[in-house]
């Protein structure tokens, strides 16, 4: 039923790739066992910076997961036939990303064996409760949708009618998962860096740029490695989405800068100052933030100018730039920036430790493992149909 048999048949490259990923996962698992035994003290976190690399990855990947809506919406609501073959790729990307999100939250918890307390003692006033529920629901939704549509494709029949409302539900649900994640941050009165109404729109804009950018890269990789060619048109349409989303995202960031610096409120300025010029001699994130800015600004003309957007070699580089820029901005910049300075004005820097990085890489490897298996199943089904 799940067509797993397609995943256990593969060439040398496939198995080598999976083995490499398993190796990374294994290393991370060892690090995690150490963290489970000793405590989160083996990370670079501190009393002032209590969320770091793990939650940064979680925040960024919720965006990537939500971006599946950018292929589902045009196809199912507006009949963009070009996306017909890649909606499932978007849904599988969403599933892999959500799984990574859940893993990142799990490894960040001080008492992970008690994680079910969130469901045993539901707390509707807590945004974290809703985040838990919405992410779980989104994973389930996408799993059902992907399974049903792929099974139907395999049997060369149209999917059953009842799947249509489920797919339509996934559209607002995708928006909601990332809005709820933004709500985790922008409802906290003591964290002036996050206390902005534009946080949720910023999250969505950056998600809709980063996610499709990754999807474009994945399509290009698939085209190189398998017989499946999504075609130039879906990639170009995705590129157009990335373009507009990136423009809006950069605009939103500019809005933040204006509000903060024109109003002149020290508590708000200090976070931006720490990130972009350093504060009280502490400036470890400054090169990261400027790299992110530079990548974003360079990517804009490369996206906007049709000649460059249509050149797939340039587009590939641009998508990588967009992804990296937003990964830095939304991950490291947003999370760590919110904690520095502390509510008492102290500047404590954060840098992840090696075990922390190893666990992070392992979870990314899990995500890549999942998406490799999912795509292998999908493309094997398509290849066998093509005969």
């Amino acid at each position, binding site marked *: 039923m799940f067509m797993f048999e397609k995943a256990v048949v593969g060439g040398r490259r496939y198995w080598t790739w999976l083995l490499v990923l398993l190796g990374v996962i294994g290393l991370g698992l060892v690090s995690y066992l150490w963290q489970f035994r*000793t*405590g*989160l*003290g083996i*990370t670079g*976190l*501190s*009393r*002032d910076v*209590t*969320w770091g690399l793990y939650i940064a990855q979680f925040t960024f990947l919720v965006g990537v997961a939500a971006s599946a809506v950018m292929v589902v919406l045009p196809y199912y609501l507006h009949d963009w036939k070009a996306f017909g073959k890649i909606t499932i790729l978007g849904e599988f990307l969403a599933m892999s990303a959500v799984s990574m999100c859940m893993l990142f*939250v799990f490894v*960040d*918890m*001080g*008492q*992970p064996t*008690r*994680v079910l*307390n*969130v469901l*045993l*003692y539901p*707390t509707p*006033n*807590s*945004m*974290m*409760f809703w985040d*838990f529920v919405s992410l779980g629901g989104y994973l389930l939704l996408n799993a059902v949708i992907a399974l049903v549509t792929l099974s139907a494709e395999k049997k060369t029949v149209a999917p059953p009618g009842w799947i249509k409302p489920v797919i339509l539900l996934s559209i607002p649900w995708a928006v909601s998962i990332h809005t709820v994640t933004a709500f*985790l*941050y922008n*409802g*906290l*009165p*003591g*964290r002036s860096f996050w206390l902005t109404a534009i946080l949720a729109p910023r999250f969505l804009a950056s998600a809709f740029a980063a996610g499709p950018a990754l999807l474009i890269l994945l399509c290009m990789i698939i085209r190189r490695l398998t017989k499946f060619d999504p075609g130039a048109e879906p990639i170009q349409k995705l590129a157009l989405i990335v373009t507009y989303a990136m423009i809006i995202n950069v605009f939103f960031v500019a809005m933040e800068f204006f509000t903060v610096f024109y109003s002149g409120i020290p*508590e708000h300025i200090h976070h931006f100052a720490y990130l972009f010029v350093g504060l009280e001699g502490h400036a470890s994130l400054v090169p990261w933030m400027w790299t992110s800015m530079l990548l974003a600004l360079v990517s804009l003309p490369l996206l906007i100018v049709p000649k460059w957007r249509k050149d797939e070699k340039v587009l590939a580089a641009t998508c990588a730039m967009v992804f990296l820029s937003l990964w830095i901005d939304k991950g490291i910049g947003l999370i760590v920036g*919110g*904690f520095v300075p*502390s*509510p*008492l*004005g*102290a500047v*404590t820097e954060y840098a992840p430790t090696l075990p922390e990085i190893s666990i992070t890489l392992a979870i990314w490897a899990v995500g890549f493992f999942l998406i490799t298996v999912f795509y292998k199943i999908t493309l094997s089904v398509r290849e066998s149909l093509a005969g």
Partner: protein
Amino acid sequence: MSLTRTGFVRLLAAPLAALAGRLRAALTARRWAMVIDARKCLKDQGCVKCIEACHRAHNVPDFSESGRQVKWIWKEPFERAFPSQESAYTPEALQGKPVLVFCNHCDNPPCVRVCPTQATWKREDGLVMMDWHRCIGCRYCVAACPYGSRSFNWLDPRPHIRRLNPDFPTRTKGVVEKCTFCDERLAKGQMPACVESCPEKALVFGDLEAPGSAVRELIRSRYTIRRKPELGTKPEIFYIV
């Protein structure tokens, strides 16, 4: 007839027993609050008796050398405790001077609002409580607290407890902790450890909603400030500065 020792003790027995019964009864209030007279506290700036009393009574571990301190009560320079009061013209008596800070047991606590498991909640009498059995260590409450009052146990605290008090549990790694207004002492009819230990009686603890209570009188008669009241958290620690 002369009063023997036994006779004397028998005379006192009944009233003493009644007194003992009264003392053992819990302290209750409608809204617990604290007034800190910063001027009295500043008489001996090096004094840390309240901090020691609290941390000793509650087995708070000593991680002071790292950036991972666990502290329920500590001192911050005036400008850090009250950033909105910062000015170049702060009176010398206060400029840079240490001020006691700890959990404000807010009336509208953002930490309670965000906790996904109700491991922290607001009790009817005003205490913001901690349930260390339920805490999953997500540190959302730490992010939510505008005062930095909460500490997370990054490592096993037991090896770092200087002197273990057997009458109170320790915590374990992976949970968040903070001042609980000594709810276990209140239940036994005792004042919080910090209040009792202060030689200057700078900490006054009482029922804000009891007319004529010490805290009420102090707030009525003296000008007091609170930390970041503009955030709507309604902190219940009042400072006479």
